[in-house]
């Protein structure tokens, strides 16, 4: 039996796992962005908060992901909950970092002009700062999205669904084809995510920056 026939025979399961994987990844990224971007905005206004927030995000990033999953079981049980929690926590750092970088990279005179012509703080944020920082913020989301695909495979450890399940059962049963049946789609999914988010990134880039 070769790889292709194995894949063909198990196509149904692989596709189901792939969609579970995609679902978990996207859900985590949406949650991470929903937390990370506002946090980044907050930090850019409150200079004093930058160090503690970034510090925590960095420390979390340094914890081995398997260990983190282990710690989460007594708190959140097994299944999707600890899985999403872990992926979100790991995705936050690039998103926060890029949000802060994007916002601080805006020309100070442009912001002063916005203030000087009579925009309120909220208007300066929504009409000037965020549109100008959006490409950089989206680049952060893109990095997170790609790494999340890999992280989601690990969550099979705590019983979450996805391609990780195929990989771990393959490892346990010494079935190379099964490992590949999980790994290859995961790899393709990561590339797909990269492509998808690069399109989003282009979409949100203000027209004026596009020619260059």
């Amino acid at each position, binding site marked *: 039996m070769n790889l292709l026939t194995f894949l063909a025979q198990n196509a149904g399961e692989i596709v189901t796992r792939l969609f579970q994987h995609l679902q978990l990844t996207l859900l985590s990224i949406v949650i991470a962005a929903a937390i990370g971007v506002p946090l980044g905005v907050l930090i850019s206004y409150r200079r004093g908060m930058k160090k503690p927030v970034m510090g925590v995000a960095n420390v979390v990033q340094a914890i081995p992901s398997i260990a983190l999953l282990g710690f989460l079981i007594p708190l959140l049980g097994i299944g999707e909950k600890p899985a999403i929690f872990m992926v979100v926590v790991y995705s936050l750092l690039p998103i926060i970092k890029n949000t802060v970088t994007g916002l601080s990279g805006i*020309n100070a*005179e*442009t912001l*002063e*002009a*916005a*203030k*000087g*012509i*009579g*925009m*309120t703080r909220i*208007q300066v944020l929504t*009409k*000037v700062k965020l*549109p*100008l920082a959006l490409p950089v913020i989206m680049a952060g989301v893109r990095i997170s999205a790609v790494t999340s695909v890999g992280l989601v495979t690990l969550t099979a450890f705590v019983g979450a669904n996805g391609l990780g399940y195929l990989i771990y059962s393959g490892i346990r049963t010494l079935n190379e084809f099964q490992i590949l049946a999980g790994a290859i789609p995961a790899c393709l999914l990561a590339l797909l995510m990269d492509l998808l988010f690069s399109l989003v990134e282009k979409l949100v880039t*203000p*027209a*004026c*920056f596009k*020619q260059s």
Partner: protein
Amino acid sequence: MIRFEGITKRYDQQTVVSDISFEIEKGELVVIIGPSGCGKTTLLKIVNRLIRPTGGRVYINGADTAAQDEIELRRNMGYVIQQTGLFPHMTVRENIEIIPRLKRVNRADIEARSAELMRMVGLDPEQFLDRYPSQLSGGQQQRVGVARAFACDPEVILMDEPFSALDPLTRVQLQDELADLQARVRKTIVFVTHDMDEAVKIADRICLIHEGGIVQYDTVEDVMKHPANEFVADFIGRNRIWSSPAFIRARDIMIQNPVCASADTTVMRCIERMRTRKVDSLLITGENMHMLGIVSAKEVQTCADRSVPVSRVMRRQFEKVSPDENIVEVLQIVNRGGLSAVPVLDEAGDVVGLITRSSLLMTLSRPYLDEMEAATS
């Protein structure tokens, strides 16, 4: 219209502006000028409250700006800075219309106004309204910046070195256009620059700031004619006057110690004095340099009796100029009378100097000679 009262701004220990008081009239273009770091931009930003003064108040139409809502205050005031003041992610139209839209002005009115503003600053609305700032030249971007400042038809417009990043040709063009525009619309404009040429070109009055205080607040002409001190004279440039002939006065170009003789000097001695001093005319003066008459070399040489006092042969009727007459008027007098020299007399008729054809030539050639010197060195 705009009254500064005792404006002071300190950062920690450093005082940026201290106790500045002056008033800008309605419809006047006042240039706040000074070397970098003198506090001129700080002063401007205090007007629209981008900077809060440590002490003092700014009144607009008698109302204390500190008591007003700052968003409302700024929306009723135009603000122009360098090109970076335009929002790069918005089209020209969006840039111009942002405040009217935030104010929820009627859409049709906004659109009509945008086209009108574009024509006002010399840009074709059809061609430019839907472009992005990066697709425009620096000069065009600055025109859009000016158009945006006029969007809400404010009474007061603040300009912070709006033209300083432009190339010299475009800069001069925009200065001229601003001067024309201002002549038509008569807004109250506060314009900050460090460029004296720019100030001379557009200002009604100049407010010269140095080390956080006003050194001089006067019309352009008065600043050039009567610099308050050495600093002002240096700042405006001692040679600047030569490029604006209307501001060059007789006192600036006259020979200050002309060759004179008293009325009872003999003709003989007069001839001798003219020969040794190499001049072709003598001013004949009485007590305290009071001008009595003038003689030319020809007149004394044709005099038969050279032992008589010169008062017998001198002309008592002569062309004269006052020290405040400008070079154009002096030239007219000299050319009309075919004169080789014209005395400069004060109101009492006392000699303060003499202008000769050769001193005029020297004066008029000076800017060219300076230029050549600068070019060769």
